[in-house]
Each structure stands twice: as C-alpha cells, then as structure tokens.
C-alpha cells in the first residue's frame, strides 16, 4: 500500500499518474484512494488517464488478442505440438492395452508366488510324500540289504558304511525292498538316484540325510 505523509492534502496530477496503476489494482490505502477519487471528480485529464488505463486493461485482457500476432510463435510450433500430443496419446494407449493383460498376469504371478511361499514353509511333508513315490531308476533285481536291528526304512548296497550293524542285515532285491516300504540310501545308491539340490540344505536336517534327498526312482 502506498504510504504518504501528506495524505490529507489534495493530490497532484503527477501523484495521480504515479499511482493510477496501483489505484486500479486496489493497491492504495483508503486515504489516498479517497483523495484520488476527489481529484478525478475535478480533473478531466486525470480522469482520462484513469479511464484510458482501464480501457487498455479491459481490451488486452480479451483472449482473442493472444490469437493475433502479439506473440510470434516459431514456424511449425502447432504441428510439433500436435505431433507430440499424438505420440503421448499413442504411448498411453499402448500402456493401457498392455496393462489390460498385465494386471491379470501380475495377479496370477502374485498368487503363484504366494502359493510357492506357502509351500516353502511346509516343504518337509512334501518331501515325505515324494519319498513314498516308487523309485524308477534302480534296477529292480539289484541285490540290496536292510537292517534287521533298527527301525530304519532304508535299503543299502551290502557294505554301505551307513548300515548300523553290518552283521544284522537281510538281503533282498530292490523291488522287494521298495514293495516293503523301504527307500534307497542316497549314499551307497547315489549313482542310481537323481539327487536334487535341496539335499542337506533345508532346515529339516534333523531328519535322515537320505530322507532329505530328492525323489529317487526305480527304472522299469
């Protein structure tokens, strides 16, 4: 706001010219405004300056003026702008169509991931399930032994160091052993087995080493 010490005095034309723009903006204090109002009542020149300035503001505020040559836009400006917008719109459409099938795919991936995580937390029962599957890569007539003094359900090649008591074994064929519920020892029968990477690496290592092995199989 314009501060003046002689606010109560009549304003001069020079002061009015200096403040007319602020007056139009409503940016003069009440005292100066009333002094200028009084001046405009008596001074035709200053009244002309005020109304002429208002006319200028009114005329140029019309948006049609921007459409004229007030600002010379660079050659090709409109064409480049239209092209840029078209590119943006095309990119958006591509993304929209992509997202139309990406969303369900992402949902499926999330569901599958969730199931995988759930399975990881309970993988031991899965292994147990796998252990009872019939082996299919061990010759069925291979002669094997099983321990008779322990509850171990493993069958071995004779002389396997993992046999608890070498003197207390029973001899049978691999097929018979499997039919009786025995599973192969991954130490001595390793060459017949397709041992997977999770052997001995899981947190359920309190089970037998053999029991942690991946699914063995009997060749038919």
């Amino acid at each position, binding site marked *: 706001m314009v501060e003046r010490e002689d606010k109560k005095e009549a304003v001069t034309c020079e002061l009015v010219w200096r403040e007319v723009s602020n007056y139009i903006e409503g940016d003069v204090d009440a005292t100066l405004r009333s002094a200028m109002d009084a001046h405009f009542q008596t001074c035709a020149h200053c009244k002309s300056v005020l109304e002429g300035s208002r*006319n200028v503001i009114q005329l140029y505020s019309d948006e049609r003026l921007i459409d004229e040559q007030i*600002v010379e836009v660079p050659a090709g400006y409109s064409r480049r702008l239209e092209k840029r917008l078209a590119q943006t719109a095309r990119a958006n459409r591509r993304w929209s169509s992509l997202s139309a099938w990406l969303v369900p795919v992402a949902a499926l991936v999330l569901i599958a991931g969730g199931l995988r995580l759930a399975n990881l937390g309970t993988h031991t029962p899965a292994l147990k399930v796998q252990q009872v599957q019939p082996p299919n890569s061990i010759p069925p007539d291979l002669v094997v032994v099983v321990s008779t003094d322990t509850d171990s359900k493993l069958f071995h090649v004779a002389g396997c160091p993992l046999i608890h008591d070498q003197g207390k074994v029973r001899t049978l064929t691999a097929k018979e052993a499997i039919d009786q519920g025995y599973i192969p020892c991954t130490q001595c029968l390793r060459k017949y087995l397709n041992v997977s990477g999770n052997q001995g690496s899981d947190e359920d290592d309190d089970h037998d080493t053999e029991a942690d092995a991946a699914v063995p199989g009997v060749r038919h």
Partner: protein
Amino acid sequence: MAEANVVLNNPELAGTMREQDLIARVQRGQSEDFYELVKPHERRVYAAALAILRNPADAEDVAQEAVVKAFANIQQFRAESRFSTWLIQITVNEALMRRRRERTVVMEAIDDRREEEAEYAPRDFADWREIPSETLERKEVRQRLADALATLDRKYREVFVLRDMEHLNIQETAEALGISVASVKTRLLRARLMLRDLLAAGWEQGWFSRLPFEKGTKPW
C-alpha cells in the same frame, strides 16, 4: 429450442459448451480430442512460457511439456476454473521450474532501475468513452492492439503480458520474471500508460474510424 437459439446467437457460450464437451470426452478416454481442446490456447501457452524464459526454443519446449502434463492430469481438472486458466497455470509453473533448474537468474540492470525511477507523463488527455468489447471482433483492431504492444520495450511488455493478459497476480509476475514487486508495479504502470497513449494516437490516425463513437471524442 429456445436454448439452442441462445447458444447459436452467443458464440462465446457456444465455444464454452464445446470446450466442456471436449473436456468430458477426453476425461472419458478419447485422448485424440485433447489437441482440439488445447489448440485455441496454444499461442497463449507459448506466450506465457516465452515471457518467463525469454528464449523461443526453451519456451516451445516448456509449452510442449506443459500441454503434455495437462493431458496427463486432465482427470484432475474441475469445471470450477476455466480450462485456459488451468493450462496457463501449469505452463507458468513448468517455466518457473525450468528456470530454477537452469539457474538463469535475471539481473535487473542499474540503468533499468534508473529509467523506472523517472516518472512517465501521459501525453494525451482526450475525453474518454468506453470501448465496447464487440470492437475486438474486428481483426484490424486486434492487429492494431498487437502492434502497439509490440512497440513496448521487452521489460514492459513481459510484465504487461503476464499481469494483464495471462492474469498472474503481482507477486506471481515478480516471481516469474525474477524481479522485485516494486519493479513489477513500476513497469506495469508504464506499460499501461504507454499503451494508452499509443492507442489514443491511433485514434487520431483513424484506427477506430468505423467504431461507433461520437464525432470528436476518443475512447479515452
């Protein structure tokens, strides 16, 4: 039927309704209509960017960025404000960000400040008469106004464009141009008074000769 006649007889209203229709269509996903929505304002967008950046290449770049940003955010546009105002505000913000990023500080020359301190005395004190807005329907009148604006020094023209044509407030104009509020006020006063004198002189040369003013009077 009566409503249709009102629209037909009022081009401005028809334009507004068409713009609202375009906005609704774009918001529903018809992105190809966005350029049609922007086209009437594309010069204004460029003018706002140029007034702040003062470099045609940067201004065009920012104008494109602003339009693309408006396109990306069209869902956020609410009918409470005019589309052009919203678009210009985005442009001004984009231009200001560009200028801050490039750290192009605009220094006020000492000579500029000295010149601004000298008072400007209006030259013409003719009787005033309000110019009807229909006057601007004549292309030659718009061209005369554009020519008058083009004769102003750049420092006055850019303040006038941002404040009186792009409708930024004084503070925003100062920030946009990197000059003080006091300088904005001084330059705005000069720009308004100089344009008033220029257009009053044009009256003498017959610019408004076919306008409905009484003989012997000027628009101010």
